[in-house]
């Protein structure tokens, strides 16, 4: 558990007099920490600057609480939407002046209305959600020994992980870990992944490595960091299998493997 990550993609912070403003911003907040967002000014500092004129100087704030986060809406007129991008339209409306609305999503997109057609939005990840071990179901959990790296088995990142682990789980132990295009192809038949792009798969893999499993960071002074990066997916697969985060039973989450597809995948190497 290490808090939440707020990510403002490049060029998403709104238009300031027609000029697209700002680089991508990533904030990492620990439990109890607060990040304010809005247009900001010299007297009203904000950690996350959104340049759209329709947005207040201080539009709202995010506070990390336990394993989730709360959203306070400082606007007196506008509701904010918190969408779950993986929730098939699931969203939360935070009305004006609401203080500390708890957000239950691991992935969330906060959408602020603007005068133009393009709303301003940023993402908040809460990777600390805890899931019970399947064997521990039914027992009082507070005092139990639990797996410290728990994964949401309904999330897209988990599907990506299962797809990464699939060849090894099917005992094709000598085959390499699938590449990103192979993952895209493998998950294409899945209802939730029909529009999954290679870039999204890479993001999910990064999220798994950095936020969920927190794969041991290499020494920044160590040369050959590029080589290390290439080993990331192998490392994810190794850890997920070794510590039982992905198991044979999870293969049923993947779309059925067509005979031809399977052979093709194997002979492709």
């Amino acid at each position, binding site marked *: 558990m290490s808090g939440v990550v707020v990510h403002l993609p490049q060029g998403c912070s709104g238009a300031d007099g027609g000029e697209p403003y700002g680089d991508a911003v990533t904030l990492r907040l620990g439990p109890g920490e607060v990040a304010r967002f809005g247009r900001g000014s010299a007297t009203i500092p904000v950690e996350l600057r959104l340049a759209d004129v329709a947005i207040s100087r201080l539009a709202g704030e995010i506070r990390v609480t336990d394993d989730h986060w709360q959203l306070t809406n400082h606007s007196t007129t506008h509701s904010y939407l918190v969408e779950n991008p993986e929730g098939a339209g699931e969203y939360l409306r935070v009305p004006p002046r609401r203080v500390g609305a708890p957000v239950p999503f691991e992935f969330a997109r906060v959408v602020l209305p603007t005068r133009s057609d393009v709303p301003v939005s940023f993402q908040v990840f809460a990777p600390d959600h*805890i899931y019970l071990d399947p064997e521990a179901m039914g027992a009082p959990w507070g005092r139990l020994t639990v797996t410290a790296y728990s994964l949401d088995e309904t999330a897209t990142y988990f599907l990506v992980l299962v797809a990464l682990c699939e060849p090894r789980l099917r005992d094709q132990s000598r085959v390499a870990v699938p590449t990103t295009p192979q993952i895209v192809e493998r998950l294409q038949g899945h209802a939730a992944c029909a529009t999954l792009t290679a870039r999204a798969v890479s993001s999910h893999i990064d999220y798994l490595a950095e936020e969920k499993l927190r794969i041991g960071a290499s020494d920044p002074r160590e040369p050959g960091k590029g080589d290390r990066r290439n080993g990331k997916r192998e490392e994810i697969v190794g850890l997920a299998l070794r510590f039982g985060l992905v198991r044979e039973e999870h293969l049923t989450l993947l779309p059925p493997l067509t005979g031809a597809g399977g052979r093709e995948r194997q002979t492709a190497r």
Partner: protein
Amino acid sequence: MTTPHALRDITERDGTDLLLPGHRVQGWMITNLIGAGGWSTVYAARPANKYPDRTGRPPAHPAAAPADVALKIMPTAGYAPRQTRRIVESARREVELGRRAGHARLIRLLDSFVLEAPDRPALDGAIVLVMERAAGSLRELLDAGVAEADRARLIAGICEGLAHLHRSGWVHADLKPENVLLDGDRSVKLSDFGLATEMTGTYGYAPPMGTLDYLPPERWRAPLGELGVKVRPSADIWALGIIIHEVFGSGASPFSGATPMARGAAVQEYGEGRAPLRMDQAVPPFWRALAADCLAPTHAARARHTAESLLARITAELEARGRGTGRLWGRARAAILTTALCGIAGTTLWSDAARANSSALDGLQGATAGTIRVFNAEKGCQERADRDPQCSLGLAIDPTRQYTADNVVPSRVWHGDVLAVDCQVPDGRAIIDEADLQSTRWFHVRLPPGSTPPTAWLPAVRTKDRPALRGCPHPATGR
């Protein structure tokens, strides 16, 4: 409270896994269910016949077959091969530790075997650990209320067990009241070594598991490596600090929150220095100080408080109160005498005084006239607040003499310390720091009360502050 819940829940979950009283497991007969965890079920049992050995022969060590035992049964059926491996791994750790590090303060492992039960597929192939039977756990005692007279003895017992484990090169890695078992006479026996890890050097690797309320701050951000997560004895010391607070503070964790997640968040806020440690004032001062040392926010700050040094302090405290003459203390005293002499208490004196001093002045922005803030040019030392000896800086006795070992006072200072300063000399020995800054200026600083000598000289390269100060009388005439 745990046991009845566990009992009901697993009964509802899957009655077929449960063994009823009277059932025979190899040479043992189940008498009742003790409890169930995620991977295992523990039963009380006694020998089904005179010699419970499978061979029917008398056991090699008659003392190793007491009347009552606990059977820890870890089913492997119905699990995927990789999960089974995890269970086998956990059992292997217990057996290995039991074989190599037995001690009066650790639950004894009497035997282990694989159950052959073709008539009960759910149990066929289960791993069975036969262990010494305890009367109860510290959790049950905490729920019922720990008698005041028992508290110190319980903590000393846990310390003895930990001291032995750590000395033998093991880390428990899942210390909590559930795993502190108690004998009929309420003597402590540590148990559940499913995550226990043998160290290579100063650390080992444990499976990525733990109990939320007892995880040290560094574990919440610990990276997962090929071998698991890094664990060090200081993780057990943290858990001990929580237990001390629970035992002396009516069962409550020092970290507030309604759920383990909320308390985990509080642990992290404290670990990152954003919240102070707030202990129950009902905890007596000696135990509060002891728990505070166990709960030092970083591994490095905690590392100097070993189970042995803590045990030495407890023993000394109890003796000072004239209550430490029982048989327990006679034995403990002999065991810890050497460590007490290692000067652990002595070396902490100054750093504690310095900490009290600097925290009192921490509110000051920068340094006001009359104080300077110590600066360490080593980048790695600037972010650390744990007073690692490698990050300490020296002070000179005489700024005009060569700055060598015999010209350095015993007291050390660290980056960020605020020192009172009364005067300066512009023309002492030239000092060059790690960033190649050079200066001949020296500040005459006052050390915390009790330091000998009471003042010393700090080279100007060790601070960024340049307060307007009068010149000192020539130091050769000073101290």
